């Protein structure tokens, strides 16, 4: 395979592997936990590195993933004292671990290739050079194998525990009442997030891990109300941003992780604006419609009140009606025009009369 294809493949696999647990982070309102974990991992990597003195050891990944779980339990412990809120607990824990990591690097590992830049920023372009060899056979880039394994694990876990995760994400109270341990599900999910973050940071850096975990699920959240669909849409958005981000980086010759994050932002922005039901445009249109619909209902109620009454000619005259409804004249004119268009009223010698559906509208408004 060409390096170009390999990079895109790695990016796509990382994207899906991150998006899947990310869905549950977003649903459980713990999105910033991914940020905390991906920063705190530095501490685990440094400590594990100082112990095994090699960057390639699987022990390193294990140690780092353990730090993720440590971060989660420290946040939980702090939060359980009820002395700080959960968001503050997150904001207190990860800078401490990150600081210790930075200090350890500058004191003990100064002359080794282990700089903070690499952890934070990542360099996907180098990923194909680190290859997995077996008996002198080239099996492909190591990152692809590692992330492929993690992706497979994530899929298996989500399929196996779909019901539990779903229940715990949407109704934690019911889940624990039915005998599922919320703590077990919480820590299970967090271990999954930690492992995924550790596997991915090596290839793409910790910031892209956050972008991939949060961006696609947040976008998908605006498109669907079904968990299964949210998972698949997230994965699809992840792959699309990974591939398009790669090409953006390729044309402009810039950092790949950064441009994937940029694409995630762009896709989110488009969905934010144009999502069919929850987008900003749809929201504004709906508000606009509701405003007019309400005004038309008020008009209909007014007309119904005076229907067949002696004062009808005065109260329901097209040029007088705004006075009785206490509306601005222009506004009233526009409402009358819309009501005529929508067939709620018709004109009978300048007197507004309700049609059959207009009466229905008024009746509905009164009942409501």
């Amino acid at each position, binding site marked *: 395979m060409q390096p170009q294809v390999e990079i895109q493949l790695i990016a796509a696999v990382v994207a899906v592997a991150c998006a899947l647990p990310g869905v549950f982070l977003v649903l459980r309102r713990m999105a910033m936990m991914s*940020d905390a974990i991906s920063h705190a991992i530095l501490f685990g990597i440094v400590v594990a590195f100082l112990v095994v003195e090699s960057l390639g050891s699987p022990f390193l990944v294990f140690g780092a993933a353990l730090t993720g779980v440590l971060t989660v339990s420290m946040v939980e412990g702090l939060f359980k004292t009820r002395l*700080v809120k959960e968001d*503050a607990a997150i*904001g207190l824990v990860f*800078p401490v671990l990150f*600081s210790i990591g930075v200090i350890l690097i500058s004191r003990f590992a100064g002359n080794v290739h282990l700089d903070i830049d690499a952890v934070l920023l990542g360099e996907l372009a180098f990923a194909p050079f680190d290859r997995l060899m077996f008996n002198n056979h080239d099996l492909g880039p190591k990152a692809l194998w590692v992330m492929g394994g993690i992706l497979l694990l994530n899929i298996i876990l989500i399929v196996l525990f779909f019901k539990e995760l779903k229940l715990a994400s949407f109704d934690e109270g019911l889940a624990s009442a039915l005998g599922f341990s919320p703590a077990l599900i919480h820590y299970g999910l967090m271990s999954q997030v930690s492992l995924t973050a550790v596997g991915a940071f090596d290839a793409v850096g910790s910031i892209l891990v956050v972008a991939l975990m949060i961006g696609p699920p947040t976008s998908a959240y605006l498109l669907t109300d079904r968990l299964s669909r949210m998972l698949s849409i997230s994965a699809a958005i992840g792959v699309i941003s990974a591939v398009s981000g790669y090409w953006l980086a390729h044309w402009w010759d*810039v*950092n790949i992780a950064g441009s994937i*994050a*940029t694409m995630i932002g762009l896709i989110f922005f488009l969905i934010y604006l144009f999502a069919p039901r929850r987008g900003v445009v749809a929201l504004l249109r709906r508000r606009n419609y509701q405003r007019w619909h309400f005004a038309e209902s008020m008009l209909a109620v007014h007309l119904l009140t005076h229907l067949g009454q002696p004062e009808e000619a005065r109260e329901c005259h097209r040029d007088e009606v705004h006075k009785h409804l206490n509306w601005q004249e222009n506004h009233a004119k526009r409402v009358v025009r819309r009501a005529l268009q929508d067939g709620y009223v018709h004109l009978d010698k300048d007197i507004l009369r309700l049609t059959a559906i207009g009466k229905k509208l008024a009746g509905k408004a009164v009942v409501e």
Partner: protein
Amino acid sequence: MNILTDINFDYTLRIVALGSAILGALSGALGAFAVLRKQSLIGDTISHAALPGIAVAFFFTGNKTTTILLIGAALSGWLATLFILGIVKATRIKLDSALGLVLSVFFGFGLVMLTFIQKRPDANQAGLEKFLFGQAATLLAADVQMMAILAGVAVLALMLLWKEFKLLSFDEDFGATQGFAMNRINLMLTTLLVVAIVLGLQTVGVVLMSAMIVAPAAAARQWTDKLSTMVLLSAVFGVAAGVSGSLLSSRIPKLPTGPTIVLCISTVVLFSIFVAPARGLLWRWLRRRRNRRQFRAEAVLLDLMDMARHHPNLEHPHAAAVLHTLNLDGRAVRNSLAELAERELVRPAGAGLWSLTQAGIAEAQQLERRFQAED
């Protein structure tokens, strides 16, 4: 004594310590509001979101002056908060997701810009790196001067808008019903926060800046329930951490300033969580222990009373061994008896026997009445 002479004579150290102190004061004071409003992590997002601003400012001006870069940083940090507000207000997306999304996308775009700039022949972006991880040692007297002026303006704004910010932090809806433009007040407070964060980037860097917002406020919260005290205390903690952190890192080689300041302020948090009066974990633990002991003693007293009822004389003595079997926590009976004896509610009657005193009978009857009333 060495540290004191250092701060008197070492020019660089004085600049760094002063800069860190100003930063600590400002981020501490403004962080108090962020923490109270459950927006602790907004600082993390703003500091990350400053990166593209720095890169773009450099890209368009070709200038590496701190002021210009910081203006760029402030603008993009501010833009990020607008995005966050827009996302949270217009959709069902929760604050945490909006924060994570804006943080990572802005930072990613910043990276794109940085690598884009690197290709230009006139660029070496070495000076930009210091904002990522912070290099307090690169602070110049002019930088500190600017920090002081901006901090002064921010504090002035804080004092002028004190009532509004207080309203925003505790009851936003009430403020809105009273006719305050809460959205605008929110934007003002966030703008001040952006200023504080941007000033801190050069000292502690993008990642650790969030701790400077959260930690002093979280520590101060433990000591008081009053907003003015909390803000003041938070600023004091910030200053203390800034100064002690920069001094420590100057005394000990290979101890970077930013992380040291963060560890200092985190120590203050830990200390506060344990020993702050009333709320502290230590006092809570002592209080709980005292309550438990009192409950146990009351249980033993009532047991004695129950047994005494079977005898014509309420002061009839009973064996401690019997009390052991009556009590769930048998081991504690001896301690409880000693405590009751000290309060002269029971008295030893020899050979492991104990009997109620008149005061003990009265106390037990009062307890019984109380429990009956509670039933």
